């Protein structure tokens, strides 16, 4: 058991309050930095892609997990980021400039969607975002001059200061850098006034409004921020794919992102990361599983969908708080080992929902 003894208010806000946290996360970062020196290039490519999905999932988490706005159209922001980045690079902009610009363009698109979207909520919002993603898919297909239409466009190789970043190792570091940067930025933002406003709007719009939070502006802002982060992931994904066609950004990707956020655990950036890791490695796990199954079963098509559905159903039924909730319980169990009380996480009647998803 551990009890915090604070001597200043700021200590309550620390991202890593305990020495053990700092040591463990430090070790994790050191491990991530060292991976390229012993991992195969195949594993590096996979990890790079997982990191990209982590960024995208964090982007959606800001909107869905923190602000409570559903989006079934986040693949369109991935697409806008990817195409904007690829187009800007073909126009001769350097990688380092084009990447943030692509994120800004995507954020702008997010603001544009956000303005009509704040007028609806729940299912209707899901429909608006879904419609938006269909429109974006069509626009990409028909705007041949910029996007290359359905035939697609080639993404130039990334370069920084004359060094090629297209090797698996260099690209892994690029992805790692942006994933960490986004994580830190969002962690800080979410504990600032803006983040508190997001959570307030999620839990009770009326209460938030009464407290002087400009609800509409907060919602639109959350859309823009979320779209920007997702667009950044899209720009990186453009390099992962190498050749952009509209079928890379269909509803399937949107649903994958929603799955990551829901399975990871609403309202937590750690959940977004855990969810992204799980969902992105699921196809590989199924492929590995197939090798163990009898031939007749392994050859059945549709296995992947079945497993993904089963995992989702399992989480909804047995762990509604997602991977993050499971993580917190495990940690509590370890920290308080002999004294763990089974009912620690049993939900009690509460009037203050704001703190529920912390």
């Amino acid at each position: 058991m551990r009890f915090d003894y604070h001597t200043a208010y700021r200590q309550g806000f620390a991202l890593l309050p305990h020495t053990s946290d700092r040591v463990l996360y430090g070790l994790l970062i050191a491990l991530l930095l060292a991976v390229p020196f012993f991992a195969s290039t195949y594993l590096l490519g996979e990890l790079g892609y997982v990191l990209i999905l982590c960024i995208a999932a964090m982007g959606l988490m800001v909107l869905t997990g923190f602000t409570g706005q559903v989006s079934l159209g986040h693949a369109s922001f991935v697409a806008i980021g990817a195409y904007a980045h690829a187009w800007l690079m073909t126009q001769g902009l350097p990688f380092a400039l084009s990447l943030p610009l692509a994120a800004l363009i995507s954020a702008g698109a997010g603001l544009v969607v956000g303005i009509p979207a704040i007028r609806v909520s729940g299912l209707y919002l899901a429909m608006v975002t879904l419609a938006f993603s269909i429109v974006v898919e069509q626009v990409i297909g028909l705007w041949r001059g910029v996007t290359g239409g359905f035939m697609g466009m080639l993404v130039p190789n990334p370069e920084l200061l004359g060094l090629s970043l297209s090797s698996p190792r260099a690209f892994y570091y690029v992805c790692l850098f942006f994933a960490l940067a986004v994580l830190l930025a969002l962690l800080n933002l979410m504990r600032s006034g803006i983040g508190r406003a997001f959570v307030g709007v999620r839990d009770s719009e009326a209460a938030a409004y009464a407290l002087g939070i400009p609800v509409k502006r907060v919602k639109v802002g959350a859309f823009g921020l979320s779209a920007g982060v997702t667009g950044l992931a899209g720009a990186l994904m453009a390099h992962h794919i190498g050749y952009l066609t509209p079928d890379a950004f269909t509803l399937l990707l949107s649903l994958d992102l929603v799955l990551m956020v829901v399975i990871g655990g609403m309202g937590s950036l750690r959940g977004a990361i855990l969810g992204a890791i799980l969902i992105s490695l699921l196809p590989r796990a199924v492929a590995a599983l197939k090798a163990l199954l009898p031939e007749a079963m392994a050859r059945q098509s549709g296995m992947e969908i079945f497993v993904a559905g089963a995992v989702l159903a399992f989480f909804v039924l047995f762990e509604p708080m997602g991977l993050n909730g499971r993580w917190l319980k495990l940690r509590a169990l370890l920290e308080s080992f002999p004294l763990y009380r089974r009912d620690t996480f049993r939900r009690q009647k509460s009037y203050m929902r704001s703190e529920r998803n912390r």
Partner: protein
Amino acid sequence: MKLNRRQMLAGSAATLTLGASLRPARAAGVHSDEIVIGTHLDLSGPAAAGMPALRNATELALAEANAAGGVHGRQIRLIVEDNGSQPQLAVRAVQKLIRSDEVFALLNPFGSGTNAATIGQAVQAGTVVFAPWAASSVMHQVAGGSDLLFTTVQNYNTTMNRALARLLPEWGVERLGGIYMEGPFGDLIHAGVTPALEAAGLTEAATAAYRPGDIDFSSQVARMRAANVDTIVAATITRETVGVMAEVKRLGWDDVRVLTAIPGRSTVVARLGGADTEGLYGVGGWRLHSADTTDPGARAFMDAYQAAYGDIPDENAANAYSYTKWFLASLEAAGADLTAESFTEGARQTRHSDFTTYAEAGFENNHAMPELVSIDRIEGGAWVPQTEPF
């Protein structure tokens, strides 16, 4: 600094251009008694239903070669990955095949977007890509004219152009309308129709578009009717072809010819459509065989397939089988010292003809030529050739 330089060299294209001298003597995936090849198919996405045929036929052809002692004493092992029709998944599948399994070649990989996203990477890594199931000219563009890409799928634009160049005068077409799918397929067909019309001094009387998945074609056909066309080019695949024909029949519109492109001219269309598709014309790119065929090559294939999988193979299976046979012949021609270069040399020397092809074909600029077409018509529920292949 030393490290950086090595890093730069490691994965980048520079290594490849710098030269064959750095490359190991033996190509990836080639062992003394085994050749490892890979493919990626849509095992979990929208096209999953058609994949068993493709996979089975590929494996059948390889198993036959292995049973006969392999190619130059090497057994061939195929690794199948899932691409779910999503480019992201395809990229990961191909990265696994190239980096982890170290395959020699990708054979019969499926999908337009999936192949477009992966072919560049594959050929840069020195992996042969044989018979991708995607638009061939686009694939060559993406691969930057690489020697390692061999395409066998007919170009939809050139074949449509060829068919129309003959049919426009023969049928005395005056007003032609087109119904195109939105997407690369429709764009390609349109790119074939336009020059053919120009050459005949005509312009397109009406065009209509539909989205993949549409089931109602009343507005598209009504637009054709309003423009009073005498011929409709339908850039449609299976269900859409049936949908267009059903609408034409429903209107009782008898004096119009409907011509569908290579993908629409499939046995499934004739079977699904029944009376609705009677009289439909189609551009054929390969020979079709019914289950009771007497063609010896087709008979042998169908019997072997049925014995192995208990199923009657469709035309996709026949094509996959045919392409795999061609791949095996290319391996044979490459000689015992198998590298990507020797394979390229070997494949270019091969000539291929079997029960699916109209004429003996070879690789010209790494694409299967000549691209012959025939005009078929559904009569009595089956496609009947109306012309000799031309």
